[in-house]
């Protein structure tokens, strides 16, 4: 099963063992097992995942529990570890029941694999995916990408002229979505503005659409560039308004 190369590398590095932290703070293996099984209350599970973020020993224990629960490779009902399964989930039944989900995931994976391998992306937002999509970050490694943000990261823009700028290749068109993020995570993102088919390489979010956005609130822009050669790219930018 092929993952986007960058994700594979991140996973490999994240799995590297580290010097153990204070193991008195580590959750029990029983809790880790129950966490992977989805048997812990949400708050407890989130605390446990927070710990896993910092403790390589517990992260390894978590991965082992996950592997124990995964069917062997080649099993026709394999539960995909990859994000290719996303396509299946979005299209499929979400009722609880691992076996049922595995069947859907397995079927979806087969269909999604070729698609996601070529795309190497998480972009399943659009109803009709573009021919090729490359997900990009927004930093230095972006220099090879055709589309780049000119608006700096975490920029604070005036509410009356919240203008996002980017550069791109001639003939490209752009879809832009701006969402209000809840930094505490209590609420899901709220769509603020969305424009499709932009030809210009800038867009000022209209002040009325920012009416419900508090000063300093975190906004997240997703820009999809449709390049003349048929490929597409997605770049992201966080910003705030005064």
């Amino acid at each position, binding site marked *: 099963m092929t993952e986007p190369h960058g*994700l594979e*590398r*991140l*996973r490999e*590095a*994240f*799995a*590297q*063992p*580290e010097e153990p932290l204070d193991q008195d703070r580590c959750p029990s*293996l*029983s809790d880790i*097992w129950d966490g992977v099984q*989805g048997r812990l209350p*949400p708050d407890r*599970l*989130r605390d446990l*995942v*927070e710990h*896993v*973020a*910092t403790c390589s020993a517990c*992260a*390894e*224990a*978590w*991965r*082992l*529990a*996950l*592997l*124990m*629960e995964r069917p*062997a490779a080649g099993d026709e009902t394999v*539960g995909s*570890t*990859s*994000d*290719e*399964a*996303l396509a*299946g*989930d*979005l299209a499929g039944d979400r009722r609880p029941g691992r076996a049922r*989900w595995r069947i859907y*995931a397995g079927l979806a994976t087969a269909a999604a694999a070729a698609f996601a391998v070529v795309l190497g992306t*998480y972009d*399943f937002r659009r109803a009709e995916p573009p021919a090729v999509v490359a*997900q990009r970050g*927004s*930093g*230095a*490694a972006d220099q090879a990408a055709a589309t780049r943000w000119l608006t700096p990261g975490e920029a604070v823009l005036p509410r009356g002229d919240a203008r996002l700028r980017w550069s791109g290749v001639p003939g490209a068109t752009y879809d832009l979505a701006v969402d209000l*993020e809840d*930094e505490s*995570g209590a609420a*899901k*993102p709220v769509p603020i503005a969305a424009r499709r088919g932009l030809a210009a390489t800038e867009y000022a979010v209209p002040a009325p659409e920012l009416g419900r956005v508090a000063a300093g609130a*975190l906004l997240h822009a997703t820009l999809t560039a449709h390049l003349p050669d048929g490929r597409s790219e997605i770049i*992201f930018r966080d910003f705030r308004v005064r």
Partner: protein
Amino acid sequence: MDAQDPPPARRPAGNGALPHSPLTDDDYGRLRVDVVRVVAQVCPGWLGSRADDLVQAVLIRVVEAQRKREGTGEFSTFYLRKAAHSALVDEIRRCRRRQEVALQSDTEEDGPVATQPDPERLSAGRQLGRAIRDCLQTLVRPRRLAVVLNLQGHSVPEVGRLLRWKPKRAENLVYRGLADLRDCLERRGVVP
């Protein structure tokens, strides 16, 4: 016990009021197959020569755990697998500690040099792993939780199920979190 031979099926508890079906030879056989598979997947090179021993040790511990609970009627396939997981984690940690001691002692007790990890590669991987952990702390909490589970091997739908988020929310948090993570790594001059 020979690791090839699963132990005999567990006798049902006297009152027959088991919360789960009694374990059978098949349950143990499947467990062994799964432990062998997991060990093969996770075994680093330096541990490769000990994979069989590791499987054997895990299965012995599972059988011991089962004996301790004999008659309680609680040793279902769920507990069987849970016990195997616990034993496997302990055994791998024990092997790792031995390996570290061996490396510090500059001995070749754990195998030929060719099977030892390449120090440069190990160091680079650890450096990136450390940077990832640092960068994760800069993410807003929901994105951090989503990314950690994704890095651990969970698919996006699984992330949503575990954290009780709708699929769309899980999708957004995973890929925005990954974008944040990559940005942070790039700012630090670490490119995966």
